[in-house]
């Protein structure tokens, strides 16, 4: 657990969108998918996922419907809406720019020596 990283505020939404972009998933599935695509190194409290999901549905980025899971249980499945897809593209680009910039900034060597 020690090598788990706390999420930056606001990044959970981006991860959810990314996870769901590969196909409809239920909540627990999304959590597993995020773990899978992030090499299990992010620490996400399970319950914290749900306010995020509700928020994205509320913003019209996700849509939800009830269905049956692979375990043969009733579950609510989430998928991207067109707006959600567009938002994912924009946010991904934003994130990459931010990460590059911060990376570059941190990589510079101190000038005085």
């Amino acid at each position, binding site marked *: 657990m020690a090598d788990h990283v706390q999420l930056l505020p606001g990044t959970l939404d981006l991860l959810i969108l990314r996870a769901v972009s590969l196909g409809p998933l*239920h*909540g*627990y*599935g999304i959590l597993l998918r995020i773990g899978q695509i992030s090499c299990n190194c992010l620490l996400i*409290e*399970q*319950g*914290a996922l*749900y*306010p995020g999901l*509700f*928020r994205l549905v*509320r913003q*019209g980025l996700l849509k939800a419907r009830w269905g049956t*899971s692979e*375990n043969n*249980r*009733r*579950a*609510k499945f989430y998928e991207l809406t067109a707006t959600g897809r567009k938002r994912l593209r924009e946010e991904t680009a934003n994130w990459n720019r931010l990460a590059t910039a911060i990376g570059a900034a941190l990589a510079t060597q101190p000038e005085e020596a």
Partner: protein
Amino acid sequence: MKLLDSLRFRISTIFSRSQMNAQIDDEIHSHIQHRADDIERTGLHRAEAERRANLEFGRRERFKEECRETFSGNSIEILTQDMRFAVRMLCKSPAFTAIAVLTLALGIGANTAIFSIVNCVILRPLSFRDPGRLVRLYMYNKQFDNLGATFPDLLDWRARNRSFEGLAATWENDSNLFDQNGPTKIRSAVASANLFAVLGVPPLLGRAFLPAEDRLGYEHAVMISYGLWQTRHGGDSTVLGKAITVDGTSYAVIGVLPRGFQYPGKTDVWLPMGLGEEALIRFHDNRRIHAMETVGRLLPGTTFDRTSLDMNVLAEQLAREYPASNTGWKVRLVSLGEDTVGTSRKGLLILMGAAGFVLLIACANLASLLLVRGSVRAKEFAIRASLGGSRTRLLRQIVTESALLGLLGGATGAMLAFASQAAIVAMIPKDLPRIDEIRLDAHALLFAFALALATSAVFGIGPALQNKRVNLQSALKTGGWQAVGNSNPALRKVLVITEVACALILVIGATLLAESLFRLMRVQPGFNSLDVITGTIGYPDSYATQEQKTVFAKRVISNLTEMPGVLDAAGTSLLPLYNFKRQFSPIQIVGHPSDPHHEPESEITTVTPEFFRSMQIPLIAGRTFTEVDGGLDSGPIVVNEAAARRFWPNQNPLGRQVRFEWIGTVVREVIGVVGDTKQTSLATQSEPEIYLPFYGIASPYLTFVVRTNANPAAFANVLDDQVHKVDGTIPVYDVQTLERLTAESFAPNRFYLRLISAFGMMALGLAAIGVYGLISFNVVQRTHELGVRLALGALPGGLLRQIAWEGMRLTLVGLVVGVACALVLTRFISGLLYGIAPADPMTLIGASGLLLLSEMAACYIPARRAMRVDPMVALRYE
């Protein structure tokens, strides 16, 4: 489309709340089952797997709450829910709610009532077009102030000024109206043709005056007010062209002015400037008669100051051209708004300030109440927080509650203001301008609610923020009253001190005003106002000669004297203390060197021989008039003591001579000296007054004075009948008892006294509630401690003193602060005081004593309760 969806979504969330809860539960359940499935696969029992899954999920209730919150956003749902809860909370503690709402209502009601007056009188713009550009022009020199222009000056101003779009002139009169409904007394104004264009108010019906009607040989045309049109003509549009008789001359109605139009005063009819050839010629020629009340509209782009400068340059030019009449005369500009409000502004602002203090006390009380309530509810909030209520959510709940309190308080306050409106307006002295415009309008209501919401928001959120600091653990652990321990005692003490200080200021103000009124009422007016009825007539133009006026007056007076119950009857041109613009006339005292800069002047009153006897004004020396005294060519005069002292100090005034330029060059001899009467008000010194015989120099108005044996008000009809028996076309107006007339001269004092003592009373009550609240809260909070101390043998009396002392200490500090503030603030009401200094020590002591007593009572009641604490009950309290 999207909007519609969102709306539908929002609405659906409101109505399917329980459904939504079930869905969230379902979803979380599904999540946990899926997780448990995975854990089970590692070889654990199902039950253990589910337990772990549950644990891993985290703070379930918290996440549920967050889900619900995101779902409903910040919207109506939370609000209705908070509202519902707030209503429930308020209903659960009716005493708290009642006190809080009532406190707010008093503060807001008082302020709204006064604000609605201030708004109508001062703030609301006059109902003319672009009233900000309208100014009144006054002429003044070293001796006279605030006079109108002369007619030739007006014409010169019009021709030569560079600042005005137009200059219009009026002069006002009391007039007799005679139409199909009989005679009545009205206010008339002679108006220049451009008046309505300058004010920017076109007539509602018909036309305004034509320029030709400004001049001699004018049409006999009249414009009437909306009020007169409604009351005398039933609002009938065929009124145009109808004839009405004003002061004996017939005029054709040419126009009706819109509702609410008032200029120059509460005018009923406007007559053309060409009116009255004799008067007009006099005004035309004479550069000495300052009769034209002038109003002008500034040209766009000109400033007030530059215009003032321009006009005075013009005044200097005129002084060079007409040195005899215009030397030393300057022009003063006053904005029309300021001119209308005049001296009332200060009094109203004082009232607003007093009402503000009441609100301040109310706010302090409310803050105190909410602080206590906040700390009492610390445990409730701690529980809610630990169950997953977010801080913002809890804060929002508190704000909703105080907003609800605010709305309730505001509504009750507005109702109070509405209920008291009529009573307050009825008390307002008649000289306050625009009284009939006063109503509780949308502005005042808006003011009330803005005030209520602002108050409750500030004083609701303050304690709420403080509440945020409450340590969850300690609040839950200690529980009950102990949690209340830190309800910010310092802040509450400051609040109590503020309340006491504010209340003291108001009580001192009210006491000073009351003391002044009592002193005023004891002032001797110089005549006996008991059992006298008075009424006034104006002579119509048909009474042109002195002979006609004399005959009329003599017949009415002798008829009146013969009526049963009438002891005496007389006539005068002007009653003492009659609410009328008094004027001093220049006189020349024979034997004194004449000094053009310090002409002696005196009030001039014409009276019939019976006047001094009827009024019971004492004769000091010489004799009064007889029936034969009179005549324009010669005639005696009677002076009051003030005139005798001023004009002939240390000499015998009898036999001395006086000349009045305005009624010829005749020299008149002093035949008697009578006692002084109060003229403009009871509070002012008597000025020199010279009496002329009415039967020699009749005034255009005649006021009858009828002394009766009892109940003078019952003689109103008698007076009316006797006048109408002699001439049925002359209306008698202002019929009232002399006692009432005298009382009217202190009407403003009474008005301010009543309102400020009402505020003082509220303040006293509110401050007492504040101290009571603090002490009883302390007692409840310390029940446990008190129980222990009583059990250990403390004497109840000692405890009582100790607890009461806490409140009294704060009261004493408040009194010191209050006295200090009062010493500064009472100077502002010194204009309303009579015969008492603003810093009157007896008043300060008395008011402080009153406050001390009421606070003592407020401390004693809860302290006694503390004394009766049963140690056993107290120790078992938790």
